[in-house]
């Protein structure tokens, strides 16, 4: 497997002209970006009233993700650290406005003016220290703090990320929670190493109904969205974490599935031929919340 891009060079170097070119020429990349951004927009769960909103696309790159927003009628502002990628967006004549900016320096928007934000495969870049002055924790703090301030109360941010490992996932999620966001991670296609995709679904403002992590598809035998009704076990979405704001005690989740449910589910998967960890005394035990 190719080395992770984040380990090769800083983003403004890695996303050079030749890398940016792929975003116009590779149908695979174009297809993936479109799918990821459609899913992110779906998870944003904007009110279903047909009113176009003002959205952010963080790490908008060549504007493929922004095009999805335009197709759905929304206005958007995209920001990216790579000039080469933004040049492609200009060439593509995207409808959104573009800014050359580093999210790790904080976003410069007035408070509460943004109706929602998406980000496709960009935020994990903040976990790298590309310059001696870079401190990932501080850059994540600047990013999430400024994102939180710029969003309207109750608005969501949906960030599709590729954390390198558990520690990075915790670092990113922890920074979001400390900035005041509520929410958690939604994992699509959890059983496929290729198609597995993670989305941080974050809600701004006091915990409310809105802050619940979107229902996991495929968990209750509910069918997934139109095109994934094949019953293929790859086509499942599960919520792997559902955390609330720090310092607040989590209410007991009435819907919590409990050990029996987990054991049943594991048995089902085994029958389908998946490899599932053996049942032990640790299976479905209560875990301490980390925040």
């Amino acid at each position, binding site marked *: 497997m190719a080395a992770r891009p984040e380990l090769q060079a800083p983003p403004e170097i890695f996303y050079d002209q030749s890398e940016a070119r792929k975003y116009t020429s590779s149908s695979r990349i174009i297809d993936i970006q479109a799918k990821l951004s459609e899913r992110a927009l779906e998870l944003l769960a904007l009110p279903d009233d*047909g*009113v176009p909103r003002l959205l952010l696309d963080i790490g908008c790159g060549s504007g493929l993700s922004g095009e999805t927003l335009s197709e759905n009628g929304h206005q958007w502002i995209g920001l990216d650290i790579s000039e080469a990628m933004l040049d492609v967006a200009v060439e593509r004549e995207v*409808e959104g*406005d573009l*800014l*050359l900016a580093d999210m790790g320096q*904080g976003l*410069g*928007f*007035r408070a509460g003016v943004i109706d929602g934000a998406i980000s496709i495969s960009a935020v994990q870049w903040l976990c790298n220290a590309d310059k001696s002055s870079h401190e990932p924790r501080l850059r994540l703090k600047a990013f999430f703090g400024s994102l939180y301030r710029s969003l309207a109360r109750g608005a969501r941010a949906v960030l599709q990320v590729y954390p390198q490992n558990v520690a990075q996932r915790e670092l990113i999620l922890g920074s979001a929670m400390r900035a005041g966001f509520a929410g958690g991670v939604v994992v699509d296609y959890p059983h496929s190493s290729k198609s597995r995709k993670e989305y941080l679904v974050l809600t701004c403002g006091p915990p409310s109904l809105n802050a619940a992590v979107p229902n996991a598809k495929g968990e209750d035998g509910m069918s997934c969205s139109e095109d994934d009704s094949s019953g293929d076990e790859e086509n499942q979405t599960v919520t792997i974490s559902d955390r609330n704001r720090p310092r607040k005690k989590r209410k007991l989740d009435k819907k919590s599935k409990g050990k029996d449910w987990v054991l049943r589910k594991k048995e089902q998967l085994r029958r389908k031929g998946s490899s599932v960890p053996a049942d032990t005394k640790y299976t479905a035990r209560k875990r301490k919340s980390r925040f």
Partner: protein
Amino acid sequence: MRLLTHNMLSSTIKGVSNGFPLTIEAAKVVEKQVDMNSDFLKNIFSKIEWKPFVEAAKTLGFSELPEEDVQPSLLDSHEFLTKFHHALLEIHLEEGALVCPETGRKFPVNKGIPNMLLLEDEV
């Protein structure tokens, strides 16, 4: 960059307490026609800082926006909506600069893209 974005942007240079609004220096302005959506305009209206919006539009050569007494009731007027729409979404600052109101630091705008990258000592 359109005035929609200009109206939301502020300077985040370290130590700046009020980075809004950024002053516009316009070297090249272009217009691109966009379909009007009155639902969007009605929804965004309350978020617009009106005075800076009017000033910015003037800088870009459009001075038909009402300056005073801008009430939500105006949103029922088609004439008003048309002007609001034009100023907000159809005029682009293509080349020029945005200037931080407190420090005078210039953020250059090339090919319609403001360069908001900060130097290390500005973060």
